[in-house]
């Protein structure tokens, strides 16, 4: 549970405050066509090229539900461990806006397709918390108004009009900006695993409205105990935050702003605010009094959405292993909880890791991935999907390390070679003579050469056995790094007559 631990509090002038955060996430459904029309959903098409007469609100046009979008919503609901409602209702949400051609958005109001569920999030300090999901409903996206195309006129692009969105509403179960960002990251991972949303925040496929309130210490626990919102402060909604970084900044700013207002003797007015990322502030958009009266009512053009439990069960059978289950499996195979949670955060990364770890030590594979592969990707500004060396090839490198064909150091050089030049690691090792030397004769010869060249050091090491490491380094150098370090160590000990603990 979410105990009010010290590091979740914000200190004000008059004492400490708790932050309470809830979120409404709009996730664009991955589908070929729109929620109620056959128009394409391809991103980046020419303005108004993906528009049917339905999307443009022409007279006499009627919406027809896209079964694929319904399936995707159910899939997402199952991934959120949520209640799937076998009967849901589409409503009209009425308001005038130039990019809303029908003059109403078809949404779900009282009877959403998905009910309560939960998302588990892992925090950096090892804490895990459950964020309750209130509901998920399907709705149409609006078009886009363009104000920078003409000095006097605005233009409207309806490509997005009618695209299916899932609005996912959480309970107010987040307490810090870190938790809010972690939740969105986890939700993004889940929908990407499920293939129900691509999670591209910069293309607007995922956008979050964040509700923030502050209360005195203890208020949140009282709210969790009896469910009454009276224990919480008045919330403000920050609209359309579209990056993980901005979420943390916006929450932080807004919580501080509210505390300042209250501590100065003011009250928080329920309102909708906008986060300006350039100045790092939230600003009022409209007050509760200015809020629209959306006049929701059931859309008479659409029948109630009804399906059978057996259909839901069939979808459940096709669900992939989700991050939580994958993480548990990784931990069982020997990874730390932290390593496992990093690996499962992106499905592509987890998939790469699984291929990489086949038949080798899990921890060794995870370390290789974290230190070598991700390090190089980071350096080159690439993502896991662009990695130039396949998981299979890297798996061969790890195998060569573990069966002592090559040393760990040589392995890194080998990776650098195949990273830039390509090629099969085993062939490269053979061709370039990178195999580790375990032949004691060759090692002994190298030791003799080092001793001969450094008689003073031989005396020193006898007094200070720790200097043996210097000899190991020299011998390695002598053998071009190919000598097996353990064999060198053992041979040196014998030759220099060093004690075992050296």
């Amino acid at each position, binding site marked *: 549970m979410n105990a009010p631990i010290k590091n979740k509090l914000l200190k004000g002038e008059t004492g400490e405050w708790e932050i309470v955060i809830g979120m409404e996430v709009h996730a664009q459904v991955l589908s070929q066509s729109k929620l109620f029309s056959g128009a394409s959903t391809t991103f980046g098409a020419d303005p108004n090229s993906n528009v049917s*007469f339905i999307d*443009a*609100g*022409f*007279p*006499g*046009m*009627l*919406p*027809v*539900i896209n079964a694929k979008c319904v399936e995707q919503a159910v899939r997402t609901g199952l991934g959120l461990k949520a209640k799937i409602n076998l009967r849901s209702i589409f409503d*009209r949400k*009425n308001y*005038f806006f*130039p990019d809303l*051609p*029908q*003059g*109403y958005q078809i949404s779900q109001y009282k009877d959403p397709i998905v009910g309560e569920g939960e998302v588990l999030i892992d925090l950096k300090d090892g804490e895990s918390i459950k964020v309750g999901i209130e509901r998920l409903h399907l709705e149409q996206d609006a078009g886009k108004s363009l104000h920078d195309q003409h000095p006097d006129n*605005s233009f*409207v692009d309806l490509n997005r009009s009618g695209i299916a969105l899932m609005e996912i509403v959480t309970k107010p179960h987040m307490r810090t900006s870190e938790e809010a960002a972690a939740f969105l990251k986890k939700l993004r991972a889940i929908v990407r695993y499920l293939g129900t949303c691509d999670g591209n925040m910069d293309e607007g496929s995922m956008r979050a409205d964040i509700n923030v309130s502050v209360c005195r210490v203890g208020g949140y626990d009282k709210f969790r105990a009896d469910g009454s919102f009276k224990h919480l402060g008045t919330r403000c909604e920050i609209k359309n935050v579209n990056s993980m970084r901005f979420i943390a900044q916006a929450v932080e700013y807004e919580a501080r702003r509210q505390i300042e207002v209250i501590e100065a003797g003011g009250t928080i007015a329920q309102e909708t605010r906008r986060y300006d990322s350039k100045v790092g502030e939230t600003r009022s958009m409209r007050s509760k009094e200015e809020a629209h*009266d959306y*006049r*929701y*009512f059931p*859309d*008479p*053009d*659409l*029948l109630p959405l009804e399906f059978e439990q057996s259909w839901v069960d069939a979808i459940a059978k096709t669900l992939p292993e989700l991050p939580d289950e994958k993480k548990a499996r990784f931990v069982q195979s020997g990874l730390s909880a932290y390593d496992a949670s990093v690996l499962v955060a992106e499905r592509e990364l987890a998939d790469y890791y699984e291929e990489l770890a086949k038949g080798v030590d899990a921890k060794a594979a995870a370390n290789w991935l974290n230190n070598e592969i991700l390090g190089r990707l980071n350096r080159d500004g690439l993502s896991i999907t662009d990695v130039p060396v396949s998981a299979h090839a890297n798996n061969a490198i790890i195998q060569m390390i573990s069966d002592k064909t090559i040393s760990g150091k040589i392995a890194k050089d080998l990776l650098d070679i195949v990273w830039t030049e390509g090629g099969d690691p085993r062939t490269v090792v053979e061709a370039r003579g990178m195999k580790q030397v375990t032949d004691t004769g060759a090692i002994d010869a190298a030791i003799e050469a080092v001793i001969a060249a450094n008689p003073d050091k031989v005396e020193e090491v006898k007094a200070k056995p720790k200097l043996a490491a210097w000899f190991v380094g020299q011998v390695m150098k002598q053998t071009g790094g190919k000598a097996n370090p353990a064999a060198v160590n053992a041979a040196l000990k014998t030759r220099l007559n060093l004690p075992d603990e050296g």
Partner: protein
Amino acid sequence: MSDLISMTLAEARDAIRAKTISSRELTGAFVSAIEKARPLNAFITEAGEQALAMADAADKRIASGQVGALEGLPLAIKDLFCTKGVRTTAASKILGNFVPPYESTVTQNLWDAGAVMLGKTNLDEFAMGSSNETSAFGTVINPWRAKNSNVNLVPGGSSGGSSAAVAADLCLAATGTDTGGSIRQPAAVTGRVGLKPTYGRCSRFGIVAFASSLDQAGPMTKTVKDAAIMLKSMASVDAKDSTSVDIEVPDYEKLLEGGIKGLKVGIPREYRIDGAPAEIDALWTKGAEWLKAQGAQIVEVSLPHTKYALPTYYIVAPAEASANLARYDGVRFGYRAEGVRDITDLYEKSRGQGFGAEVQRRILIGTYVLSAGYYDAYYSRAQKLRTLIKRDFEQAFEKCDVLLTPTTPGPAFGVGAKTSDPLEMYLQDVFTVTVNLAGLPGISVPAGLSENGLPLGLQLIGKAFDEATLLRAAQAVETAADFKHSPAKWWSV
């Protein structure tokens, strides 16, 4: 020529099949009749040239042996149906010169059956009205006049252009739409047949929406048989309309045969309203006797929530309309006001200038009843009442097969007689709205003349998707009534 245009749809069909007339001849006769009848203002758009081209195409198909169910038969289309390439106005200024790039499913079905389009008929703006006086294209004049009178009467509404066109022999048949009585009431006051099918029987795709849960397309014809023929072609399940229903469309014409022996006809006692003219009551009684004489059994039934139907309708229909008409905003198509300051000004001026008074009134009512704080008191309660009204019918149909009622509280009235009092106008629908609220099929059949020589109709109401029984009962009334009257063609002299 006048012989051609006074034929029924069935007669014309048979004549065309027998090749005694061509579609071109028939269509030509209607095109010239329409020109002569312009004083009636029944058409918003005449499509004479296109009609003749369609007729020629039909004649070609006939010559090659391809004969559709309505091959070569000229029809009039209510200007609420979108017709590809032909201006569609909904009788509103706000649609401007809107020319749909698509065809409604119902009209497409008709053209697929070989029918010819003569033009688009006038109506109340967005089908909101009972007298065709709210049209932005002017009032339609009823071809009928009272005995010894030259006073212009209304043709009913909202399908008043269609009812006038059928009554004045300006087409073989017409399409209408019926949200609260808009097919049956105008048919009744023009002495013709009007059928509102079960909700979901005909696709609503491509019909300019008024109230989506109530709107239904149907035929307006000279005879019951013609209605059966038309419905067969108009009806279809449609993937483009989620509320259309996948139930086989039977051969209604064939199912007209067999008589009504043993048919149970319910008389709902709540339809006897105070202040209704005695002649309406008398006609109703006569109707029951006609059916009884043909072997039907008359049973009294109760529809206890009838008195709530009109208020329920005037909450539900405007609520849906307020949303349906939000798309007419001056942004993408239709009328756009000039000289506006900003987007709000554009909305307000375009809609303020583009919509007529009755449409604005209903948008305001609809917006009000859906507003926060009023939703529960109005919309929500209206939905509950609608369920009760539906249940009334279900219970009544446990005791009978069809119901018999008057169609309207009286005959056609004078132009302007009821325009100053919207509530009195709304009363025109008192016998018809219940059927829309329950989603049932209803038909009006001409049954006699009023004291002053104007047509009166009787309404039959059927079980959902049992149009076949409904039509058979309607034909029994038609046969007994033997209504052979037609208006004098005063406009073409």
